[in-house]
């Protein structure tokens, strides 16, 4: 309730709750419970210590402190903490794997999403032609 900005609200899945299915939307999600299926969010995903995810994840930034089994796609950054475990392939613009973390799978780097403004990296990589910006 404290946040007026609806696009930036964070949903919470607590420890004893389980979801079996598909989750999507422009939200951030904090997972301390159990998810099976797939998650596709425009916001960030945070998998807490007690979180167990058996799903493909797609989000802007993803932080893993719990367990994830599935393919992970982070348009911005993937972070695996010492307590974190990722079994599956990851695709990310930037990865940060801390000492002690477990990661089994392939890793593929992508360019940061062109939509993100203010990032110098995206400005460097963005293609020069911009037909939409031409003014009559």
């Amino acid at each position: 309730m404290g946040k007026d900005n609806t696009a930036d609200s964070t949903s919470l899945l607590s420890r004893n709750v389980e979801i079996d299915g598909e989750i999507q939307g422009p939200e951030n999600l904090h997972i301390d419970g159990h998810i099976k299926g797939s998650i596709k969010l425009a916001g960030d995903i945070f998998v807490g210590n007690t979180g167990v995810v058996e799903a493909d994840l797609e989000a802007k930034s993803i932080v893993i402190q719990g367990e994830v089994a599935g393919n992970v796609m982070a348009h911005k950054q993937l972070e695996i903490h010492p307590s974190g475990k990722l079994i599956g392939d990851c695709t990310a613009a930037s990865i940060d794997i801390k000492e002690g973390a477990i990661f089994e799978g392939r890793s593929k780097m992508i360019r940061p999403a062109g939509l993100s403004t203010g990032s110098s990296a995206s400005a460097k990589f963005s293609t020069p032609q911009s037909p939409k910006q031409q003014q009559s």
Partner: protein
Amino acid sequence: MALFGKKEKEKFAKKEKEKFVKKEKENKVQRRETGSSQKETTYFGRNLKIKGRVSGNGNIIILGGLEGEFNLKGRLKIAQPANIKGEVKADVISVDGNVKGSLVAQKRIHLDQTARIEGKIDTPSLSIAEGAHFDGEITMSGRSPHALRPADVDAAPSFQNTTKSTPK
């Protein structure tokens, strides 16, 4: 006699204190293990769309969309912008939002002013606020047997009818 009583009292107090300390310790250990989960309520924001099954123990507040099934041991609040399609089961359900499907509660259901329900309700105890929309049928199961006597059910409406017609 008086001395004995005092001693007994002291003993009792000591025991209570020990019990209390032990409980506190247990609580602390539990808190450490579960993190801050004691006050945690699962919260699904208004932008979140879920397709599938949500189950577990605890309290849930949903503001977003769900297509599928809720199976919860605890309280469920379906808040205003929420849109639920499917079957909802919980101990206590409170509705401010929209539901198409069935609501089944072990304890009670409350429909608030802004609630819009299309479907079935099954609960031992129900309250509906003025302004709520409800299209469907209600089953009140799990009541004590005398509350379900058909004679009472028949008598109640006829009594109401007579009282309504007399003033005219």
